[in-house]
C-alpha cells in the first residue's frame, strides 16, 4: 500500500520533468538541427529542414530524462549507499593486484594471440598518452599547478628531434635526451614568469604559452616548414640496426636472421614507448618518496604553510615544470619518430585538454588512475572510429559525464607516501588540488 502511494507521485514527477526537458530540447534543436544551412548551387546559402531529426532527438531527451528521474527517485527511496561508495573499499584493495596485471598485459601484448598491426598501433597510441598523462601528473597531480599548455612541451620535443635530425643528421638516440633537455628548458622558461600566479590564472597563462608555441611553429616557415610540417623524419634504430622493410645489410631482420617484416619496427616502437612510459612512472614514484616529491605534495596542499616551513617554493615549482616538460619532450621525440611527419596541427589546444582530462579523470596524482583513464579515453576513442565526426561529440560528452559521476576521478583514494604507523588509503576529498 505504502509502496504504491510513493511510487505514483514519483512517476508523475518524472513524467512532468521529462516533458519539460523535451520542450527545452525542442527549443535547442529546432533551429540548430531542424534548419541546416547548406551551400546551394549558386554559392548562396539556403536552409534545408529536418524536422524528423528534431522529433527523434526530443523523444530521446524525453526518454532519457524520464529514466534518469525514475532512477533518482528510486535511489532516494531506497537510501542505499551509492555504488561508488560500496566498491571503493574492494577497489582500493584490489589496486595492488591491478597494476601488476596491467603491466604484465602491456609487456606481453605483442606476443598475445590475435594481436595484429592495428592492436599494436593502438597500444602505442594509448601508451603515448599514458606517458603524457604521467608527465602532466607531476605538474598537476603532485605539484598542483594547473597546466593547460602541456602540449607545448610535446611540440618542443617533437620539433627538437625533427629539426636536429633534419639539419644536423643526429640520430634518434642522441636527440631523445636533447629533446627532453630542451623541453625542460622551455618548462623553466615558462615557469619563471608564472611563479607568482595561482590556479585559474596559471591555467590561462599556460594556455596562452601553448598557443604561442604553436603559432610560432606555424608561422616560422623558413625553419619549421609552417603548416606543411616536417616530413621524412628519420626512424629510430636498434643499436644501429635499421628496420628497413626489404631487409638487407645492417638491418634488424638480417642481423638476427629473421624474415624481414614491417611488424618488427612496430613491436620495437611499442617496447620503446612502454620503456619510456615506465621510466616516467618509475621516476615519479621514486621522487614522491624523496624530499622533492614531498615538497610538491605539500605545496599542492597549502602553499603558504609550505613557505612558512622553509620550503623553497621557487625551486619546487620550477623542478615540477621542468620534469613534467622533460617527459613531455621525450614523448614528443617519440611521436616524431613514430609518425615520421609532424605539423603544428598535432599540437593544438585540444591535445592539452585531452591530456589534462586523462589526468583529472584518472584521479589527480594517481598513477594507476591515469593509465586506466588513458586506456578508457584513447582506447574508447579508437573503438568509436566508425562514428567519424560524431566521435569528438561523444568524447566531449563522456568527459562531462565522467566528471559529474566521479568528480574526483576514477581512482579517488590516496595512500600517503609517509605515515605514522599503518598506511591507510584516504579519500581524495580530503586532499586539496592545486590551489597554489
Amino acid at each position, binding site marked *: 500500500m505504502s509502496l504504491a502511494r510513493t511510487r505514483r507521485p514519483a512517476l508523475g514527477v518524472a513524467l512532468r520533468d521529462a516533458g519539460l526537458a523535451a520542450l*527545452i530540447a525542442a*527549443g*535547442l534543436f529546432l*533551429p*540548430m*538541427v531542424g*534548419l*541546416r*544551412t*547548406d*551551400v546551394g548551387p549558386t*554559392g*548562396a*546559402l*539556403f*536552409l534545408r529542414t529536418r524536422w524528423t531529426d528534431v522529433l527523434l532527438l526530443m523523444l530521446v531527451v524525453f526518454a532519457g530524462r524520464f529514466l534518469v528521474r525514475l532512477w533518482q527517485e528510486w535511489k532516494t527511496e531506497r537510501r542505499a549507499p551509492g555504488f561508488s561508495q560500496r566498491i571503493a573499499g574492494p577497489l582500493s584493495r584490489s589496486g595492488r593486484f591491478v597494476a601488476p596485471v596491467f603491466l604484465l598485459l602491456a609487456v606481453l601484448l605483442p606476443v598475445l594471440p590475435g594481436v595484429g598491426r592495428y592492436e599494436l598501433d593502438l597500444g602505442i597510441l594509448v601508451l603515448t598518452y599514458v606517458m603524457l598523462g604521467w608527465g602532466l601528473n607531476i605538474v598537476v597531480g603532485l605539484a598542483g599547478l*594547473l597546466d593547460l599548455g602541456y602540449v607545448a612541451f610535446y611540440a618542443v620535443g617533437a620539433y627538437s628531434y625533427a629539426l636536429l635530425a633534419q639539419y644536423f643528421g643526429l640520430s634518434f638516440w642522441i636527440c631523445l635526451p636533447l629533446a627532453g633537455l630542451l623541453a625542460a628548458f622551455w618548462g623553466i622558461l615558462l615557469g619563471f*614568469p*608564472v611563479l*607568482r*600566479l595561482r590556479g*585559474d*590564472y596559471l*591555467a*590561462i*597563462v599556460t*594556455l*596562452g*604559452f601553448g*598557443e*604561442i608555441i604553436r*603559432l*610560432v611553429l606555424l*608561422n616560422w616557415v623558413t625553419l619549421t616548414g609552417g603548416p606543411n610540417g616536417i616530413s621524412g623524419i628519420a626512424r629510430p634504430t636498434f643499436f644501429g640496426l635499421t628496420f628497413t622493410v626489404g631487409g638487407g645489410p645492417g638491418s634488424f631482420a638480417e642481423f638476427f636472421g629473421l624474415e624481414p617484416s614491417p611488424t618488427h619496427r612496430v613491436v620495437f616502437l611499442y617496447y620503446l614507448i612502454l620503456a619510456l612510459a615506465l621510466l616516467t612512472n618509475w621516476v615519479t614514484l621514486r621522487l614522491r618518496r624523496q624530499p622533492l616529491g614531498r615538497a610538491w605534495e605539500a605545496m599542492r596542499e597549502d602553499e*603558504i604553510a609550505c613557505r612558512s616551513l622553509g620550503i623553497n617554493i621557487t625551486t619546487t615549482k620550477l623542478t615540477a615544470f621542468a620534469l613534467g616538460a622533460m617527459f613531455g619532450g621525450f614523448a614528443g621525440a617519440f611521436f616524431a619518430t613514430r609518425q615520421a611527419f609532424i605539423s603544428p596541427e598535432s599540437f593544438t*589546444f*585540444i591535445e592539452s*585538454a585531452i591530456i*589534462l*582530462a586523462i589526468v*583529472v*579523470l584518472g584521479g*589527480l596524482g594517481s598513477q594507476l588512475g591515469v593509465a586506466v583513464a588513458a586506456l578508457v579515453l584513447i582506447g574508447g576513442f579508437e573503438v568509436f572510429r566508425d562514428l567519424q*565526426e*560524431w566521435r*569528438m*561529440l561523444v568524447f*566531449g*560528452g*563522456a*568527459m*562531462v559525464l565522467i*566528471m*559529474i559521476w566521479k*568528480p*574526483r576521478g576514477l581512482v579517488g583514494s590516496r595512500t600517503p607516501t609517509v605515515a605514522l604507523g599503518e598506511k591507510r588509503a584516504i579519500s581524495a*576529498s580530503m586532499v586539496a*588540488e*592545486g*590551489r597554489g
Partner: protein
Amino acid sequence: MAYALQQLINGVSLGMIYGLIAIGYTMVYGIIGMINFAHGDIFMIGAFLSLIGLLLITSGGLLDGPGAIVLVLALSMAFTALYGWTVERLAYRPLRGSFRLAPLISAIGMSIVLQNYVQVSQGARVKPIEPVVQGGFTIMQEGTFAVQLSTMQILIILTTLVILAIFTWLVTRTRLGRAMRACEQDRKMASLLGIDTDRTISITFVIGAALAAVAGTMYLLRYGVIDFYIGFLVGVKAFTAAVLGGIGSLPGAVLGGLLIGLIETFWSAYFSVQYKDVAAFSILILTLVFMPTGLLGRAEVEKV
C-alpha cells in the same frame, strides 16, 4: 594619420565584440569563480543561430532592412540564452561545491561537445553570407587614402552601447542585479538571506549567453563568414580582455575588450598579420604576470 584613424575605427568595432563576450566571462568568474570555457562556443552558437535566423527571414521575404536585423538579434539572443542555461544546468550545476578542477574539465568537455554538435548539425564548411548592411561614410580624405566609417561599424558600436546601457541598468539598479552582486560577494551569505542562488547563477549564464549572441550576430554581419571553430580563438581573446580589464569588473571587461581589439588591429596594420594572435596571447601573459588584478580589478587579499 588617416591610416591610424582608420585602424582606430576598425579596432573599436572589433573591440566592442570582444567586450560583449568578455562580460560573460567576467560575470561567471565573479559569481562562481570558474572559467567558463564553453563561453567562446556559446558565442559561436549565437553566430550560427543568427545566420539561421537571417536566412529564415530573408528567404521568407518577411522583413527587410533594420527590422530584420532587430528580429534576427532578438531570435539569436533568445535561443542562445537557452543554450547558456542548458550548459549551466547540465554541466556545471551538478558540480557546484565539488572540487575546483571538476567544473573546468566539465567546461572543456562542454566546449568540445558544442563545437562538434555544430559541426555535425550544420556541417564543417565555412558559411559565407552576402553583406547585409552596406554603405558608409568617408569621414576624411588624405591623398588617395580615404577613411571609411561603414554603416556596419556604426551599427556595431551603437548596438553594443545600447545593450551595455541596458545591462548596466540591470546590474546596478534592479533587484536581480543586486542578487547577482550579492552572490558574487558571498554566495553562502546570500543564500542565507533568502536569495535563490541557483536561480541567480542560471540567470547570469542566460545574460552572458545573450550578450555573446549579440557579439555573434555582429561578428556574422561584420565579417560575413563563420564556421564551427570561431569560438575558440575569439573566446580566448575575450577572456584575455576580461583579465586585462580586471576579472570580475564589468566596465573592465569592456575596456579590456576595446584594448585587445585596438592592439590586435594596430599590430596587424603596422607589424605582421600572422603574429597578431601571438601579440594577443603575449599581452595576456604580460598582464597576468605584472598586473594580475588587471586595470580595474580589485586585489585579492588572502587570509591565512
